[in-house]
């Protein structure tokens, strides 16, 4: 009897010897990873960059674990500092394709200052922020992206704070590409990441994601499918939404789409590093 | 050989530039080892300004970076002369701008007085090069540095459009020594 081993088409980009991964059943991060890899694969296929020139940098968090499973030059940096690490990589060797993946806390909380300044500089890196609206890795604490009123382990009476609208923030700073996606619409994640990877300057994709394990549990939706459906109901797709539609609120839901798509010169060009 | 030099005056008198030219002339355009420190008060004009330079034949001789017993001193203003006279040793050669320094205490110094600022103002057209007149006087009397080394240092340090005037002032100062 011949047993043929099935090979997933994305396996070539994965350190398969490190599987299984650590993400919980029903976690949205895996959806982001495969969509991202498909987008990367398409860009490699087009010859936009080479596989060995890709560097994926994560900070710390469930999302930031992704580089551990990727078969590129990868980095598991420290919490919040993936963006400046990536900036150093890009400036030291502009031919590298530098991608940052991180959670909402990693990128917009502790790393928020770096995000702002990388966007302001139109630094030539791509940042993919998986927004599960919570600090998942540490067990479900409040994130700067947790919508008002929701329960987390550190807001047991409901979140009294207003969340940060990262899309609007990054857009306001002049980034070349800003999109919001959702794990409920994987094909769009792929499209947006694909677009982001083809542009110069700072490109940013927020991906709304589900964390049934800690986020869902505390807001009373423990079931992964149910949480996924809940998010899907809240998400409206719009091809080119205006920034006014980027409002960020659990009750009114979320508009996903490409908010900014322009071609200002990136940092490397401004600095004279593109030769 | 090891010489301690102190230069002091008010902010705006070009004290630090004067110190810097000596440092560059000694380190870059002569064969000396040099240590120079500067201090100045927060306000750029009117406050205290002081440069301390130690010149030696070898790096080993330099040691402590600050002046303890100056062999050579330049005082461009009276207040600083009073304030820093304790750092100047007996027998030191002391230069002072008589435009502003009216009284000099009896400290056993070899005194060299000349109205640097007045000379700069009347003969060179601006009080701003009084420091270079003083430098010329210092070099002319002490022979610590060669004229060429100082002129090269001026070219190296001073803004291009000011080089000629500064050199002229320096040479005018050299002339004071032969008087």
């Amino acid at each position, binding site marked *: 009897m011949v047993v043929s081993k099935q090979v997933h088409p994305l396996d070539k980009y994965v350190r398969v010897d490190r599987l299984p991964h650590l993400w919980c059943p029903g976690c949205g991060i895996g959806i982001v990873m495969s969509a991202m890899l498909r987008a990367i694969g398409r860009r490699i296929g087009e010859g936009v960059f080479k596989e*060995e020139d890709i560097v994926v940098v994560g900070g710390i968090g469930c999302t930031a674990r992704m580089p*551990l499973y990727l078969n590129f*030059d*990868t980095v*598991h*940096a420290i919490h919040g500092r993936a963006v400046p690490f990536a900036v*150093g990589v890009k400036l030291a*060797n502009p031919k590298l394709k530098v991608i940052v993946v991180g959670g909402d806390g990693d990128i917009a909380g502790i790393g928020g200052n770096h995000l702002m300044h990388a966007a302001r500089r139109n630094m030539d890196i791509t940042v993919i922020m998986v927004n599960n609206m919570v600090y998942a890795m540490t067990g479900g604490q409040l994130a700067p992206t947790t919508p008002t009123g929701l329960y987390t382990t550190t807001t047991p009476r409901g979140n009294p704070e207003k969340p940060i609208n990262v899309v609007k923030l990054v857009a306001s700073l002049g980034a070349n590409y800003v999109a919001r996606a959702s794990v409920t619409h994987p094909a769009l994640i792929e499209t947006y990441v694909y677009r982001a990877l083809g542009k110069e300057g700072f490109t940013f994709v927020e991906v709304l994601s589900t964390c049934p394990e800690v986020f869902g549990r505390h807001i009373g939706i423990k079931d992964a499918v149910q949480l996924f459906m809940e998010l899907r109901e809240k998400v409206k797709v719009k091809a080119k939404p205006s920034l006014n539609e980027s409002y960020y609120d659990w009750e009114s839901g979320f508009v996903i789409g490409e908010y900014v798509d322009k071609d200002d010169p990136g940092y490397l060009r401004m600095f004279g590093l593109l030769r | 050989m090891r010489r301690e030099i102190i230069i002091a005056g008010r902010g705006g008198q070009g004290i630090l530039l004067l110190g810097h030219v000596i440092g560059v002339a000694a380190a870059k355009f002569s064969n000396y080892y040099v240590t120079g420190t500067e201090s100045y008060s927060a306000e750029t004009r009117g406050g205290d300004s002081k440069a301390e330079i130690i010149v030696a034949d070898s790096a080993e001789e330099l*040691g402590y970076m*600050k002046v303890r017993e100056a062999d050579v001193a330049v005082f461009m203003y009276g207040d600083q002369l009073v304030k820093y006279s304790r750092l100047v040793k007996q027998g030191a050669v002391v230069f002072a701008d008589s435009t502003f320094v009216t009284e000099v205490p009896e400290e056993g110094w070899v005194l060299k007085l000349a109205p640097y600022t007045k000379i700069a103002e009347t003969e060179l057209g601006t009080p701003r090069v009084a420091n270079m007149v003083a430098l010329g006087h210092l070099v002319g009397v002490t022979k610590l540095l060669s004229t060429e080394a100082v002129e090269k240092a001026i070219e190296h340090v001073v803004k291009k459009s000011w080089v000629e005037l500064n050199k002229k002032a320096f040479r005018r100062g050299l002339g004071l020594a032969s008087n």
Partner: protein
Amino acid sequence: MRAEYVTSNIAIAEGAMASGLKFFAGYPITPTSDILEYLAEELPKRGGVVIQLEDEIASINAVIGASWAGAKAMTATSSPGYSLMVEALSFAIITETPLVVVYVMRAGPSTGVPTRSCQYDVFQVRYGSHGNYELPVLVPWSAQEAFDLTVKAFNVSEMLRVPTVILSDAMLAHTWEKVIIRNPSELKIISRRKPEVPPQEYMPFKPGEDLVPPMACFGDGYKVMVESLTHDERGYYSPTTEVQERMIRRLVEKVRRNSRLIIDYETYFTSSAEYIFFAYGSTARSVYALVKELRREGIRAGLYRPKALWPFDEGGLKKIASEAKRVFVVENNVGLMYKEVAQVLRDKEVISVGIIDLDVPSPDRIKEVISEWL
């Protein structure tokens, strides 16, 4: 080779460029900003990149990234900025990233007197970050030595794949001196060892005989995993006591076993000295002047001056101090390295001469303190 009249800060910048610096990131802070300013002017002329980032945290993280992208990289800061850098420093240690940090001490605590000098941070520089590690720290006492030790810092860092610190102070930063600036061809410049095996066989954290792993960089085709978690030879997270112990011991041992590459000292009049002075950095200049003075007075004094503060040179100190009657540890703080010296010279009378001076303790003040012991 050329002679210049420059401060230690500029000498450090020149030393870095001579060593092949290709990336510098920094954040303005007194009394270090002129390194950033000077390099912003000079380094791009030599094909390098300089960027002022949003803070010191970004600066050192970018420097780590740049190093992994294959560049010799450096940042520079002073005391408060180093406080912000220490978390990332420990990241550089576990990932064995070559880089150089310039640390110009200024008088704290907190904002203190920003423009003025001290030697308060000799422990913070070494132990400020978390984890159990060794960290080479070199201490120049002149602008010339600032240049020379910067070249050495890059060599040590590249050779041992360990972040290396040049510990200067505000006094030196503001002192102009003659410096012989050598060209790269006149210097011994060492760069990180590259892997000799093909990518399939390469393990990014498998050490050579010197305990240092060859380093493949991004874009070299080796698909490296730069891991801040405890990792095995492949760079894979391994939370076991066995791997933890192996990793920690190697990180520490690779520096200790190669400490002869780092440790260096100078002595002055120490043979037959009755009194040995231990001093480092700018303070050693004052002590040197004092020792010469004491010798002129017929007092048998000598100076031992480490050029590397860490790892602490126990052997050299023991040897030099073996015949001495008393050892004075003179520092511009209330007595910090004193503890280290006293511990090494347990059977000697070691006296702490801690003097607080916003510039540098003067020979006269030191003499005043020690005279009762002579």
